[in-house]
């Protein structure tokens, strides 16, 4: 369970988040949507413990977040892979840095590469991969640490339409299998509707509206009229905010 109370974050004089309140049930998903500069990414950084709030509190799993929380995973827009490490080493180094032994590291990395269909790419550098492949590696690097909360920032914005949908399918499948709590920041309405059990519309550093998505996770959801209805609803809300 993620509980945010009266959160305020500012960069020097610029207030990025104002009196933000939010609760995300454990094992659920939450998509945050809004225009550029509305504070979505700052919210994600605050949840990851990367920025310190001026006031308010963030509680995850009953514990207050006061710094980087080891059980929280973060996947960023530009993947955040280390270009000098191979795919395998990108997955292995956080484990090694956390004190996992060579055998366990190798087993975990091998299993993750297999799960994500990356076995044949383990020896390649990130610069030799396509956008979709890099995104899978970034997700794998986070999941190999078995987080209970996964934060994703515009995770598929740089991908083509088809790859974007396939990445979204992958995230949904992994969420179902691993039961982590997912908080996803996106510009993309369809992505928010497909992956958000609850959709937050943000503007000016505040959550303007929380919309529950009862159709989340339905089979072939993208082809269903309810998907278009929900997308339309979100689009209208965003227009109203703009």
């Amino acid at each position: 369970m993620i509980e945010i109370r009266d959160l305020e974050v500012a960069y020097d004089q610029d207030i990025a988040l104002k009196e933000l309140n939010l609760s995300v049930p454990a094992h659920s998903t939450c998509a945050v949507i809004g225009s550029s500069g509305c504070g979505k990414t700052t919210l994600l950084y605050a949840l990851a413990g990367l920025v310190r709030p001026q006031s308010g509190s963030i509680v995850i799993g009953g514990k207050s977040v006061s710094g980087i929380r080891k059980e929280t995973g973060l996947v960023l827009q530009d993947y955040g892979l280390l270009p000098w490490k191979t795919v395998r080493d990108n997955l292995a180094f956080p484990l090694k840095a956390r004190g996992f032994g060579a055998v366990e590291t190798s087993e975990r990395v091998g299993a993750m590469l297999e799960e994500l269909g990356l076995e044949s790419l383990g020896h390649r550098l990130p610069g030799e991969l396509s956008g979709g492949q890099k995104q899978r590696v970034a997700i794998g690097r986070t999941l190999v640490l078995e987080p209970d909360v996964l934060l994703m920032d515009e995770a598929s914005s740089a991908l083509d339409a088809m790859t974007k949908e396939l990445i979204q399918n992958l995230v949904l499948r992994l969420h179902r299998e691993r039961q982590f709590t997912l908080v996803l920041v996106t510009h993309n309405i369809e992505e928010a509707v497909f992956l958000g059990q609850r959709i937050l519309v943000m503007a000016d550093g505040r959550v303007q509206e929380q919309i529950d998505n009862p159709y989340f996770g339905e089979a072939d959801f993208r082809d269903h009229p309810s998907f278009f209805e929900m997308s339309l609803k979100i689009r209208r809300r965003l227009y109203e905010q703009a």
Partner: protein
Amino acid sequence: MSRLKGEMRQLGGDRAQSGDRTKSDDKSQRRLRSSASLRGSWLQTLYGMLAILLFWYVMHISVGSAAIPAPHTAILHFLRIFPGELSKHLLVSLGRISVALLVSLVLGGALGLWMGVSERADRWLSPVVYLLYPLPKIAFLPVLMILFGLGETSKIMLIIIIIIFQILVAARDGVREISKELYYSVLSLGIGRSGLYRHLILPATLPKIMTALRICVGVSISILFFGENYATTYGIGYFIMNSWLMADYVEMFSGILALSLMGFLLFKGIDLLEARWCRWTRLTRRLTDVHK
């Protein structure tokens, strides 16, 4: 799971992007690329040598002075004296430069990384660096002689106080260039401070440090030439100046050839280290070539 794998294959576009490439395919391609690059590198060296020789011959013929001997005369003399006396001078110079480069790399690199990471360190140290960097440090040679004596230490210190700033500034700027996103991404993995240095900061700054090191090699050789002109009877600088004073220009040019050889070996050594430690930058360069 099989459905997932099917999706993954579709998602990765492995076949679409790179065919059914396997690890051994990649390895053999890398081997081919590396042998082609080695061949190219030797051809470039050969071209460089021929261009210099041609220029040397033109100068020799057009000036018509004993001060510029014929290249073949100097080369033959170089080959004759190199195994004996000349190699001793070269080794002494190489030792002085290597120690100076190593000390500058360790001290300048560490200080630069610290200044890049710590805003407070940068605030306090940058003004000192900016004031000292442009000074003509060679003017401090008498001070170095008093402090460190006339022996090896003052010669090496003279090189260090000049080149350390380049490495320091390169390391500091290298840290500053790490994107906030990459920094956050690695930080969020919950690795400690030492892990951050080892996995992110050091590798990210290494290409800049290698470039600075390459510049420092050229500068070090020039300073060494100056430093080897007092209180020593060994070193390639001494050898060249001594030959000049004795008006033995063929011998002097043999020394210059040895100095050039030393520079060439140091540059090639740095190239090899860069190819080993910064393989990813070569990949970026290769991809840039493709897009031209």
